[in-house]
């Protein structure tokens, strides 16, 4: 057998192919890895941008929550300060704190919200309102004169209409109560046996005023309190509105002023003509004159109407001024004029009863013979004509957050402090605080000093507070008479009359 030459089986070729798969595999793996890394980076960038937007929004809401908490603090006798940068409040996924600054009757709250990488800072300025309208149906800062045949009583529009609360058991229609009147000046009550003046309520005299009344023909069902302190009356706030030229309206077609805010140099309604103001509305007029047989309809069905008079309001005898809902809470007549001893800025002789809250802190008011008012009348000085009737709506002086709470005057976005804005990591780490040891919002308020005075009844003396800590008898409280806020313990001698000071810390 001839041996076959040995064939080369190609070990060299095999050797050159060895590992080629690995190279291809490596290239494929690197390509996939690069692609994956790119995708992950992109995804992470997208996610980061989304979460940054969400975090900023959350921080904004936290700052808003801080403002709300600070406001609540002010309403409950605290300074408005909630926590601090050193000890913030943990809330939701983040934290907030509120810095409060008190100055000249204003409170500035700056709230800082931090959530993950989000940062926000907001500020509001609030004006303190320590007193609303005094709780009297009729109140004058200067002399008050009431002519014979006048009826003063009271009702509560939140319990129903006047007619539902009044009866004729005394021979004339009256509720027989709550017709409280007060003055910082002298009060003259006139009446005759045939034409008596009846005050179904108390009379309060402050600031040295003296009461003089006819011996016969004047009935005061309540008590007369003298020697009290002079009461303050809030001034009229005049809104800044675009002003239209004066209008003199006459003709059969009524002039309709639609809902909204508008000012007029003057409005004069001629006889047999009508002007309709549709609520909700704020109407600022320099002068308003309603002639005899003319009608001013204040349509409060759609909302409240505020009528601000800058100079004079004259409703002539036989004129008609109608509040369509007959609800005094929905019609406010504010006279901003300062008549400085001249003719009364507000003359009212309309043939129809007016349901309104009327305030004229710097002007005199004259209600003519037979006028009837449901609501409240507070003025610098006033003369109430014979046969007039004033029915005080107690609902108008009931304390509400709108009259006794702080009033918001400014809201703004402010800069976040640079050291906090620049570090976008975990806020607890940035501030160096332990989330688990931080207080809750309700526990983080800073208290203040309050001087509070309650009354035991309308016109009654103030409650002596010495029993506060020994078990205060709340059944004695008729209403809140006065409170004043101090950032620090008040100086000795600040109290003008019997009261008490309670530190809420």
């Amino acid at each position, binding site marked *: 057998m001839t041996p076959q030459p040995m064939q080369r089986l190609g070990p060299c070729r095999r050797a050159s192919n060895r590992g080629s798969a690995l190279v291809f595999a490596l290239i494929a793996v690197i390509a996939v890895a690069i692609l994956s890394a790119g*995708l992950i980076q992109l995804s992470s960038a997208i996610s980061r*941008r989304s979460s940054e*937007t969400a975090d900023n*929004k959350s921080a904004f809401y936290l700052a808003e929550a801080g403002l709300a908490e600070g406001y609540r603090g002010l309403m409950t006798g605290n300074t408005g300060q909630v926590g601090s940068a050193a000890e913030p409040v943990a809330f939701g996924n983040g934290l907030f704190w509120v810095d409060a600054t008190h100055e000249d009757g204003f409170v*500035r709250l700056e709230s800082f919200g931090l959530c993950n990488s989000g940062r926000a800072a907001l500020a509001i300025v609030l004006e303190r309102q320590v007193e609303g309208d005094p709780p009297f149906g009729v109140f004058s800062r200067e002399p008050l004169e009431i002519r014979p045949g006048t009826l003063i009583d009271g009702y509560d529009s939140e319990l129903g209409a006047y007619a539902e609360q009044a009866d004729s058991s005394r021979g004339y229609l009256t509720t027989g109560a709550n017709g409280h009147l007060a003055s910082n000046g002298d009060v003259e009550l006139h009446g005759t046996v045939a034409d008596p003046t009846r005050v179904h309520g108390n009379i309060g005299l402050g600031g040295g005023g003296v009461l003089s009344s006819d011996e016969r023909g004047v009935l005061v069902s309540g008590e007369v309190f003298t020697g009290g302190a002079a009461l303050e009356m809030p001034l009229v706030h005049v809104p800044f509105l675009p002003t239209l030229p004066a209008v003199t309206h006459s003709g059969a077609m009524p002039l309709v002023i639609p809902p909204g805010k508008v000012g007029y140099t003057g409005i004069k309604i001629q006889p047999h003509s009508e002007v309709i103001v549709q609520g909700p509305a704020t109407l600022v007029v320099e002068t308003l004159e309603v002639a005899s047989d003319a009608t001013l309809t204040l349509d409060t069905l759609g909302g409240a109407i505020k009528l601000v008079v800058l100079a004079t309001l004259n409703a002539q005898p036989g004129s008609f001024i109608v509040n369509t809902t007959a609800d005094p809470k929905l019609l406010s007549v504010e006279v901003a004029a300062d008549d400085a001893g001249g003719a009364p800025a507000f003359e009212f002789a309309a043939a129809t009863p007016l349901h309104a809250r009327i305030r004229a802190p710097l002007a005199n008011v004259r209600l003519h013979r037979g006028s009837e008012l449901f609501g409240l009348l507070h003025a610098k000085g006033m003369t109430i004509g014979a046969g007039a009737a004033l029915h005080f709506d107690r609902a108008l002086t009931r304390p509400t957050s709108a009259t006794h709470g702080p009033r*918001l005057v*400014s*809201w*703004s976005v402010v800069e976040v402090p640079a050291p906090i804005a620049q570090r976008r990591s975990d806020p607890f780490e940035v501030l160096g605080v332990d989330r688990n040891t931080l207080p809750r919002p309700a526990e983080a308020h800073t208290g203040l000093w309050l001087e509070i005075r309650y009354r035991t009844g309308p016109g009654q003396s103030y409650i002596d507070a010495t029993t506060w800590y020994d078990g205060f008898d709340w059944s004695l409280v008729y209403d809140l008479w006065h409170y004043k806020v101090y950032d620090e313990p008040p100086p000795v001698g600040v109290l003008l009359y019997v009261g008490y000071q309670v530190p809420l810390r």
Partner: protein
Amino acid sequence: MKVPGLRRNAGFTIIELLIAVGLFLILANKVTVVMNAAARFTEDESATVVLEDQAHRVLDRIAAAVMGTNGETLVPDAEAPAHSSQLLFQVLLGIEEGEAVWSDPEQIALSESLRKVLWRQNPDTPEETRVVWSNLVRPYLEGEVPNGVDDNGNNLVDENGLTFVIDRNRVTIQISLTQQQSDGRTLIRTLATTATCRNIVTQGGP
């Protein structure tokens, strides 16, 4: 003498090569399709996020500006169906010694090219400062074409890609942003919000 197996290692038949090449081409095609789809998806997602993020940021900035002002200072007063693509206002900076402190006049408006949102302080004065808040605005709001008809059913006619509707102290802001993709497609995102002026004080003070 035949050595078993030697024949099989000698090479591939043309059939085998054709099948292998065919399979490779099919696989490469599939991979290309998948990669293209992934790239397109990624591009779309990325563009969508950019659009939404920018729209949110612009809306938040405008809303914050509106909240810081007073309804009475807003110009123009454009109740629906009236609308505007610009807003002139002043922001209340705070109260100092009982007096309201207002910012210089500010304006947020669509540029003349209808593509940019511009914030301008002291507009049309030598002291004017301007910042571009977005450059992706659509000339007209999504679904709207300039034909004198309300095409998108929002009670507004021919409204621009940035539109303000003012109702007393409440401003509704609508914005449509758009971006063209590499393959010629156009992505659009539309967002809207309503902001209320939080300040009640007027130019005269609190």
